[in-house]
């Protein structure tokens, strides 16, 4: 008897052509995880559609068979959002990489979802424009993935996130229909689709806003004895009414790692370094840059380096941009955490992280988007040592608790995915989560579109909340998992 996946494989081969369907177990393993490698599951089937019509046809075929499906862009997500289902189909957008339209008079471009983030900026740069969201992964991540994760980057402090730079999306709904979101009157369905982590449908065409390249960019690196004085400088800058394009901070351990990996030559003996970048019109930037430099010195910076040109700017950024990978030089293994706190809570929370680290013996290197309080603690451990991974996991989870306790968030940019669904109840009540899932019920009542992500417990659509008895029907059918 053929299984539903067998039937789907045949159907998809007929719809998309045989070379667009992967069923070979060895090749399927290429897709078993995204950037969060601790969660793995080889997909039941991979398809590589080339058009919205093909995506819609696959989604309809999945719906007819009751088979779950997951979209995947470049697979750089860090929360397991694109983790496949062994019993499902992985819809990969890597053959949808055309920039369809560049419309400079309207400051827009229309791209397919598989287009690489940086390629958008490269294409419009000759016109003096760029695509503002700049996740560190921008050389490989896809715009479709950016939409799903509402990705930000170092410069989102001033320029905002993907949600602020996408004006319309063509979407294949879980019904297999192709609709346009973001145009015309009515609910801002685009607004909720962006950041929904691929659980509300698959975007097949994205209209992005293009941003004018600023007249001037100026960057400085300030070195401090301690994180506290670095934090003081950040507060002073924000307090002075300056909105830098970026403010990034690294602590001593993160600096040590970056130094070992890329020899970025940051000032010796720094307990913290701050990178501050300003951009905008010449006079405006010149004035505020002097102000920032002064505020850094007032806060106790013992050295301030100002980038004289693009090459020096790149050098300043090298250390920061390599920080994640660099900790590999000082630790056999590590977890990347992503949490947010109100910026003013920074000193207190960092002291608590220190205390956690001291009490558990687990080292934590801190790299963060200091301007918006987005922490990326890197929790170091030796995977050869028994129980070390669990201890690291515990410290990492405790850091999230600290974030929530201080009125922050369990994720600032990496998303919830499978990784943090279990933490959602720490931040939201059952009613909050139920209400969010009403949106999902509107879009995807059968729950086949990227199930098991974002929410710890699926909502049965149409059911009165709170009176559930026995296992959830979706769980019983194996269509969803509980954490």
């Amino acid at each position, binding site marked *: 008897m053929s299984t539903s996946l067998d039937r789907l494989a045949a159907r998809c081969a007929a719809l998309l052509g045989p070379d667009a369907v992967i069923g070979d177990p060895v090749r399927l393993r290429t897709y078993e995880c995204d950037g969060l490698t601790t969660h793995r599951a080889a997909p039941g089937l991979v398809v590589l559609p080339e058009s919205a019509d093909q995506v819609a046809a696959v989604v309809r075929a999945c719906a007819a068979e009751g088979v779950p499906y997951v979209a995947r862009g470049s697979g750089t997500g860090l929360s397991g959002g694109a983790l496949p289902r062994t019993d499902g189909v992985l819809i990969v957008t890597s053959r949808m990489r055309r920039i369809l339209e560049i419309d400079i008079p309207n400051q827009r471009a229309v791209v397919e979802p598989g287009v690489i983030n940086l390629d958008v900026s490269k294409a419009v740069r000759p016109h003096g424009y760029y695509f503002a969201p700049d996740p560190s992964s921008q050389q490989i991540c896809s715009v479709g993935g950016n939409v799903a994760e509402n990705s930000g980057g170092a410069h989102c402090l001033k320029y905002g996130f993907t949600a602020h730079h996408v004006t319309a999306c063509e979407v294949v709904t879980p019904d297999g229909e192709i609709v346009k979101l973001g145009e015309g009157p*009515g609910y801002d369905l685009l*607004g909720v689709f962006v950041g929904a982590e691929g659980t509300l449908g698959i975007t097949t065409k994205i209209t992005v806003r293009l941003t004018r390249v600023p007249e001037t960019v100026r960057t400085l690196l300030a070195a401090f004895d301690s994180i506290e004085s670095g934090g003081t400088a950040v507060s002073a800058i924000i307090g002075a009414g300056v909105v830098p394009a970026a403010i990034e901070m690294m602590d001593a351990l993160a600096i040590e790692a970056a130094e070992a990996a890329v020899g970025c030559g940051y000032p010796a003996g720094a307990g913290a370094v701050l990178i501050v970048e300003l951009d905008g019109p010449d*006079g405006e930037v010149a004035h505020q840059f002097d102000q920032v430099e002064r505020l850094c010195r007032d806060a106790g910076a013992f050295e301030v380096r100002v980038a004289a040109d693009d090459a020096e700017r790149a050098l300043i950024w090298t250390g920061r941009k390599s920080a994640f990978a660099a900790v590999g030089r000082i630790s056999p293994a590590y977890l990347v955490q992503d949490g947010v706190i109100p910026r003013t809570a920074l000193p207190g929370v960092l002291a608590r992280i220190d205390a956690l680290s001291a009490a558990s013996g687990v080292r934590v290197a801190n790299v963060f988007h200091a301007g918006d309080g987005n922490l990326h603690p890197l929790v170091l451990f030796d995977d050869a040592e028994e129980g070390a991974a669990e201890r690291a996991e515990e410290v990492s989870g405790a850091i999230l608790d600290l974030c929530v306790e201080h009125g922050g968030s369990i994720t600032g940019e990496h998303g919830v995915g499978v990784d943090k669904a279990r933490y959602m109840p720490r931040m*939201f009540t059952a009613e*909050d989560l139920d209400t969010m899932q009403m949106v999902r019920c509107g879009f995807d009542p059968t729950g086949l579109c990227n199930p098991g992500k974002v929410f710890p417990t699926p909502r049965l659509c149409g059911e009165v909340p709170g009176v559930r008895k026995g296992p959830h029907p979706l769980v019983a059918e194996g269509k969803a998992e509980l954490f």
Partner: protein
Amino acid sequence: MDALDALAGACADVRPAEPEEGVLGVAPRYVAAPATVEEASALLRAAAGHGLAMVARGGETRLDWGPPPTRCDLLVDTRRLDRIVEHAAGDLVATAEAGVPLDDLNAALGAHGQRLALDGPPGSTVGGTVAAGAAGPLRLRYGTPRDLVIGLTIVRADGTVARSGGKVVKNVAGYDLGRLFAGSFGTLGLIVSATFRLHPLPPARAFVSQTYGSAAEAYDAVHAVLHSQADAAAIECATAPGAGHRVDVLLEGVAEALPARSDRVASLIGGTVAEQAPDGWGAYPDGSALIETSVPPASLKDLLTGPHAATAALTWSASGHGWAALPAGTPPERVAEVLAALRSIGGAVVRFAPEDVRAAVDVWGPVPALALMRRVKDQFDPEHRLSPGRFAGGI
């Protein structure tokens, strides 16, 4: 228990409605003004128990927008939800209840050198501004409520209180209901409080203005600034039948740099510089019918010269959003022609109009993804008791 008793049991301030409190002629039976989120929740639960249809009322600046409700038993007045819950100046965020007038909020924030960068017409409440998705000229730089709301507390049709987002700007945990509720005009739930991302008040500002004889010159001026590195906070264009085409550019920034910046823009567009906002800055154009338009920058010339321009007074922001107003007495057939002309170059939604006009024209125009919108509505308000009939596609 009858409905009034049930409502009174839930909320201290409940009374029979006055005849003049009708929403576009639909008279509610009761008016209730909850003072806390708990009261609002109990009120909506009681209303649900009696199957009452409700409309929320804030500052009444936009209560006459959209079609009349198909039913309205209960008017929920949000003005007693009037607390500024928190202003965390160091974090550039503030939380305010729905009934707080936006002007009051901005006055409080201004004392700390900060602002919520929503500059709609005066009189609006926080809740009404979010529900209407309203924003003024600053939308070019700062967007609309969907871009500035970072946390939202709502009461659902059944009285359940739910929250999304939080009080940090950077946050991707869970669905962003703030964006969904922005511009939903009370049809998904009652907004009871909102948390906003704030911006520093600019130390100085300057306006660069010029009125041009031709649409082509106005178009060139707008595009010259838009595609320059002038970093304008707002670019507005306005015209009226028989009048010139006016372009106003707002620059904000440090006082030390502003004169040079504004001189550059002035020479770019042949304009003059002023410190004060020009007359009518951010105001709706005058008329008895108001149409919200979306026309992209490349189509500005068509907007200024199309067949609608003989009747309509127009304002437009380089964000692509604008307004068209029609004088009293414009016959419905002419309004329909204006709408058709505007829809041939963009979008046009009738916000308010005399009853005979509203009844005769298609107020919304095409609504893409309407089926999906209805399904979302059915989840939030299965009995269609929240501002029924007031929204796109008859939602």
